[in-house]
């Protein structure tokens, strides 16, 4: 596959970046990606990204955690080695349920939180020993980088980006194998 050309426009302020994104979107150009040193509030909406489904996965993971807690406590405290809880030897999960609520709660939170973070990493294609995708190390400090695909319209894009207040504009060959 032939290496595609992209424009890297670099900004030094998140407000300037936001208005630039809006202008570029208004001109119907497709923004491939934006690299920022910190999360910029509202950027996803301005870029037109689909809303995240991470919350749905978190809910499902929570349900898994709850189920695990119920099955685990049922096995440990009721089935495998029945316990007399609080002087009420009923040996029924339901009747001893209040004692298990803290565990049910904690495991729900534990599963939801950890699995959500792992999902987020995977979905963001981040894993150990992976080479950074970030094309310019300055975006980890104080610069913002907008990447736009070029389809034989370099001149038009460059002048548009210059108008939006980019401090630096580079046209690079994007090597697809890099990541």
């Amino acid at each position, binding site marked *: 596959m032939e290496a595609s050309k992209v424009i890297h426009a670099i900004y030094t302020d998140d407000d300037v970046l936001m208005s630039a994104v809006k202008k570029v979107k208004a001109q119907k150009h497709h923004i491939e990606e934006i690299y920022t040193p910190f999360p910029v509030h509202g950027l996803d909406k301005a870029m037109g990204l689909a809303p995240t489904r991470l*919350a749905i996965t978190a*809910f499902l993971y929570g349900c898994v955690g709850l189920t695990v807690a119920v099955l685990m406590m049922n096995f440990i405290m009721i089935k495998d080695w029945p316990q007399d*809880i*609080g*002087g*009420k030897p009923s040996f029924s999960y339901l009747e001893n349920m*209040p*004692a298990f*609520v*803290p565990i049910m709660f904690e495991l729900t939170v534990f599963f939801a939180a950890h699995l959500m973070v792992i999902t987020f990493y995977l979905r963001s294609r981040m894993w150990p020993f992976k080479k950074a995708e970030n094309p310019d190390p300055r975006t980890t400090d104080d610069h913002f980088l907008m990447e736009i695909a070029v389809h034989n319209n370099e001149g038009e894009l460059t002048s548009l980006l210059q108008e939006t207040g980019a401090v630096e504009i580079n046209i690079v060959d994007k090597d697809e194998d890099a990541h």
Partner: protein
Amino acid sequence: MEYKISNRLRMGAIIMMVLGLIGVVYGFMDSHSVTEANISEVLAAEHHGHGDAHATESHGNEHADSGHGEVVAHGEEHNSDKAHGGLTHHEEHALHQIHNRPYAALYVGAFFFFMIALGVLAFYAIQYAAQAGWSPVLFRVMEGITSYVLPGGLIVLAIAFAADSHLFVWLKEGVTEVGHENYDKLVAGKSGWLNKTGFFIRGLIFLGGWSLYRYFSRKFSIAQDSADDNKNFKKNFRISAAFLVFYIYTESMMAWDWIMSVDPHWFSTLFGWYVFASMFVSGITVIAMITIYLKSKGLLEFVNDSHIHDLAKFMFGISIFWTYLWFSQFMLIWYSNIPEEVTYFVTRIEHYKLPFFGMLAMNFIFPLLLLMNSDYKRINWFVIMTGIVILCGHYLDVFNWIMPATVVDRWFIGMPEIGAILLFGGLFLFIVFTALGKAPLLAKGNPFMKESEHFHY
């Protein structure tokens, strides 16, 4: 941005009050038609209707697990079962419970609406003390609701005064007198705190403090509208911080006095917080509902979806906070299973299964599932529907505080209860919406107003 209570709303509120009053009066007449003379026939007819299972079951339990039962229950055993004017113990208890019911129903309704206003007052003070930037557009709505604190609180106290030992068994004659047939050692030991004079003096101090704060914060808030500096705002900040300190102590004591003392043998150190969570979530829910109502009238155009979203987040969050406190109280008592503590929950689970567990579903499961999704918190009708469930749930919460101690198993949500809801609900709407019409709906002098108007989540 002026609002005037519409004639329809005013008429609606008045009709509610009239209907409610009829219900309440009916409740009293109905209960007083049962007297010592005809209690036996009434009970016989009841048992006949309920079938034998109920009759046999209720006979044995009544003494052991009723809050009243314990206190009324005769320090020394009576020799014969026919103690008072030819009544059996069972008949005597039943008669007390029947007579207590209209008072308890009235008290539950009155306290429920009062606690909404008080919860909003605390929320309002927190906004000032935290110098919150998102909420000033809602201040006038909150101020409208808090106008009910003083009348509502006075009504609660007045009912407590009128109901006397119908609600508070520790007010019974001779409870603290050694040798008296009503003598109760535990209550006598608490009489340094639990006595009539102390109760009402404390009640007036609590109410006085809250009303003073409400009076001055409202005054400064109105004055800030036309001021050219922030002096009034700063004053409001200071008195709000002071009020919150006063409030968190007095609210807790109020909860012991006005609610926990209906079961004078039982106590829970968490109770004040738990009552606070209830009033806080009900108050926030009512702020959201009234805001949405006013918005639907084309008013409050400066309130945007993000404000509703934030209120709904609070409804969601505080509902879970309420559950946390409720459960913390429940679990420790359930687990340790100490007779004098656990009797509180035994009564409720035995006789109040539906309201007790129903309340949990309405106050926890419903808001948890309905308001979990971020988008739903912005859908106005969704917030209203959830709000109705939460309010009904917290009415049941108050119901579960008062009723088991006063009427034991003779509870029902019938004429006296619905009458009290209508009566005080009507009064609440009338006072709140009249107060809303007294000042512009935008507290335009607030220094955070710009931030609040542009609040965007």
